[in-house]
């Protein structure tokens, strides 16, 4: 793959093996290390950084100071630079946790601007105009000026960085990054600690940039703070943008291009300028890199958004199409279900869900007022009410997306009222969303793997090294996902993106994602929305199966009356945030308060044969979007 490019380039016929070309390759490799780090942070985790030049500067100056200043061997300085820059990245992550979009971009710009200023202010052993000098590292047997020596030193370092980064992307950590980038809400509901993984992304990205900075100063031999400016941060973004935003190989390709191309363009513009000058036209073509970078960014973003890596992938697919993979459709593995049922039955002894006097206010509006309910393990309970009654608000309080003003939420005896959103899955509560919060740009399989996030035991280090234990856990996770997909009869969607699936299947994918973590309570938010009569009937059967075979308790919010009446064992009815009725479907149907709340729609509450025949004008109430 692209990672071998720096090595392969030396094998191209016509490659002049001289100092100059090796120095170009060295720069390409140094920039690809930054590219890989930035790709993890911005491409994968979606955190825009316009301040990586600052991190590069920190790495460079740390290495310079520790090696020449304190006399350490270069390799030790490199490690110092990596650790210290990583630490700065960690500090940078903390304010960044609260920011996103333009606010985050500004903060990183500020960082990038501040670092060279601070360095200059601290007056780092600047030896006159030439800046800070360092003794270039080299291997025994080579002269200090031999870039070939450094080529041999840098090449394995790039390989290691690439290896670690690739392992991350193939495991829990990489998926967590993607989840955060896609939709923070769903990521939290899947138990992905937003803060934790953002910090990890910043720290690792910074550490890698620190390595690059150290190698940079080792390569050039001297640095000055002006080099590390906004234009350099932009260059880094260009590298990953033209390489392909979340591909690591693309970062390497982009770095290669952006090192070699300016050389080429420089020569070209010098040549042009000379010819024009000789022809009598006095034109200055200094600093062509601005026009070059600008044009490259615009052209790539507009016409080749997946970057070089994406284009390469397309070419590969055109000429060597991958054979259609045979997806083995396993019928639901009874051993797995048995295992789950044993787990669930062990929990039966615990109390179920208890909501006590829940009140939720938004400014002057009371969305939910003094709401109380209970749900026993294994029950199917419905929460119904007209539009705006507060049903989804109750769900959002359960999920901790809202903080209740009053009241207490208890699950299995545990007070979950103020529990962070990302811990819900750990205590066995899963949910689906009214507007679907799937990771649209990830495959269905990836969605289901993220759904198991809290259950995966991989640590950060075992992720980076892809230990055999991690490998096994990944395989097991995929197997669990396949079994749930088979249970829901959507095995064929495994490799597809939810964005390209019909709505009904997308709902099943979200249900699968909620199930795969083996919850004990599942919150379904309008599962029948947008479904026709046939699909609704199938869904009711499916929910009953989920309860019967997995022992999962179900709390659902729904508008479709016939669906709810047939499926739920008990109902709670909300109107304007208050509970107006509770009980079995029969009891609730004939409650005058409920009928009054549904004025004009009471035909839907009656579901007997004769009623259906006499009321031909009955139309099923269309699910209304709140």
């Amino acid at each position, binding site marked *: 793959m692209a990672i071998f490019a720096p090595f392969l380039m030396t094998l191209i016929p016509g490659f002049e093996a001289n100092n100059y070309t090796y120095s170009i390759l060295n720069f390409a490799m140094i920039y690809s290390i930054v590219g890989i780090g930035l790709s993890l942070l*911005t491409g994968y985790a*979606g955190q*825009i950084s316009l301040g990586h030049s600052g991190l590069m500067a920190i790495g460079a100056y740390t290495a310079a100071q520790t090696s020449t200043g304190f006399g350490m061997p270069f390799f030790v300085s490199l490690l110092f630079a990596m650790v210290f820059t990583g630490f700065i990245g960690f500090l940078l992550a903390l*304010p960044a946790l*609260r*920011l996103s*979009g*333009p*606010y985050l*971009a*500004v*903060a990183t*710009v*500020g*960082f990038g*601007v*501040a670092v060279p*200023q*601070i360095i*200059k*202010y601290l007056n780092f052993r600047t030896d006159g105009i030439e800046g800070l000098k360092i003794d270039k590292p080299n291997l025994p047997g080579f002269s200090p000026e031999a870039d070939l020596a450094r080529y041999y030193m840098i090449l394995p370092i790039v390989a290691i960085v690439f290896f670690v980064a690739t392992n991350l992307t193939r495991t829990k950590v990489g998926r967590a990054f993607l989840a955060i980038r896609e939709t923070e*809400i769903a990521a939290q509901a899947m138990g992905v600690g937003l803060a934790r993984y953002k910090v990890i992304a910043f720290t690792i990205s910074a550490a890698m940039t620190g390595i690059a900075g150290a190698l940079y100063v080792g390569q050039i031999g001297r640095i000055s703070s002006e080099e590390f400016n*906004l*234009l350099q941060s*932009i260059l880094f*973004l*260009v590298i990953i*943008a033209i390489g392909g*935003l979340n591909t690591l190989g693309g970062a390497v390709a982009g770095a290669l291009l952006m090192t070699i191309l300016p050389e080429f363009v420089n020569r070209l513009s010098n040549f042009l300028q000379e010819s024009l000058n000789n022809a009598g036209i006095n*034109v*200055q*073509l*200094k*600093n*062509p*890199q*601005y*026009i*070059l*970078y*600008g*044009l*490259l*960014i*615009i052209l790539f*973003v*507009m016409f080749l*958004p997946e970057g070089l890596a994406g284009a390469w992938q397309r070419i590969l697919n055109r000429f060597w199409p991958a054979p259609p993979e045979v997806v083995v459709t396993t019928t639901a593995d009874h051993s797995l279900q048995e295992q789950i049922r044993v787990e669930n039955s062990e929990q039966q002894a615990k109390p179920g869900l208890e909501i006590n006097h829940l009140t939720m206010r938004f400014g002057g509006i009371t969305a939910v007022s003094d709401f109380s309910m209970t749900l026993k393990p294994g029950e199917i309970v419905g929460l119904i009410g007209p539009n705006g009654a507060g049903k*989804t608000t109750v769900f*959002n309080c359960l999920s901790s*997306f809202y903080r209740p003003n009053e009241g207490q939420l208890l699950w299995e005896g545990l007070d979950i009222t103020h529990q962070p959103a990302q811990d819900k899955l750990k205590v066995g509560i899963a949910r689906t*969303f*009214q*507007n679907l*919060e799937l990771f649209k740009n990830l495959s269905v399989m990836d969605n289901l793997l993220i759904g198991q996030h809290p259950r995966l035991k991989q640590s950060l280090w075992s992720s980076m090294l892809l230990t055999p234990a991690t490998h096994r856990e990944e395989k097991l996770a995929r197997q669990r996902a396949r079994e749930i997909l088979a249970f829901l009869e959507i095995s064929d969607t495994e490799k597809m993106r939810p964005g390209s699936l019909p709505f009904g299947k997308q709902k099943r994918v979200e249900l699968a994602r909620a199930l795969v973590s083996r919850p004990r309570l599942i919150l379904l938010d309008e599962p029948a929305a947008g479904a026709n009569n046939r699909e609704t009937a199938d869904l009711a059967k499916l929910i009953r199966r989920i309860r019967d075979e997995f022992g999962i308790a179900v709390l659902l919010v729904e508008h479709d009356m016939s669906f709810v009446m047939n499926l739920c064992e008990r109902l709670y009815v909300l109107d304007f945030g208050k509970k107006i009725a509770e009980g079995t479907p029969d009891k609730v149907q004939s409650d005058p308060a409920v009928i009054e709340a549904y004025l004009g729609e009471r035909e839907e509450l009656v579901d007997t044969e004769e009623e259906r025949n006499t009321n031909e004008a009955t139309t099923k109430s269309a699910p209304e979007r*709140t």
Partner: protein
Amino acid sequence: MMSIVAQIDPLVTFGQSLVNGLAFGSIYALVALGLVLIFKSSDIVNFANGEMAMFSTFIAFAFLDALKMPYWVAFLGALVFAGLLGASTELVLIRPLRKASPLSQVLVTIGLGTLLTGIAGWVWTFEGKPFPDPITGPPARLGSIIIKQGDLLRIGVAILIAGLLYVFFRYTMIGIALRGMAQNTIAARLMGVNTERMTTLTWALSTMLGAIAGMLIAPNTFLEPLMMADVAVKAFAAAVLGGFTSMPGAVLGGLALGVIDNMVGTYLSQELRSTFAFAVIIGVLVIKPNGLLGTRVKKKV
């Protein structure tokens, strides 16, 4: 530096610093207004804002220098150019990318800005050129505090434009349509608002604001391709400080940032001005992640 400050009456130093800060802050406010305008209508941050302003100022320079036109002709010419530049950017670069990822949208503006810098450097070189102040004359005095005519103009223009924009958005049909569009594009369309034309209009308007800012600051900094780089970054920070969705916030943020920046330079350290300014901003953002006057758009789950 510190010893000189100690000899002058500290109140004068403070006052002078305040005045200078407000003058620069007015420039930041103008550019920040342009940024917020575009963000409210297109939901994009225009990273090329500074460079577009710089380029328009160069056009004014071309009118003055090459074509030997009087100032007011150059001023209007630059405005017209800015409007066209903003509109065509929206049509050619931004609109086709409406469905692309936010990062792509951000990157294309970064690319444009870089490209404009390169073209300006190519046509006019990277050396600074003098640019005239539209108003010349003896500076005003407030006690011992010197207020240059140019500074008065800057502050005055910023206030005037902020006021005009306020009236425009509050009381004119187009202004109200723009605000509605920013809140709910679909509803605006249903009401007959041509949202696409409106978006192009906001880009034109925003670039014109930047052009005015550029022409007001060029006399101070000398006109060169990287002139607006520092201003753009500070204006960006000012817009964020004020809350990216608020126009009064942009003005407030701009003025505040100008004053903070100048105060830091006077009392703490010239070299670390930007650093402290950003530290303040990041501090504000940590406490109020949406800026001083901004509001968070809550997503309905």
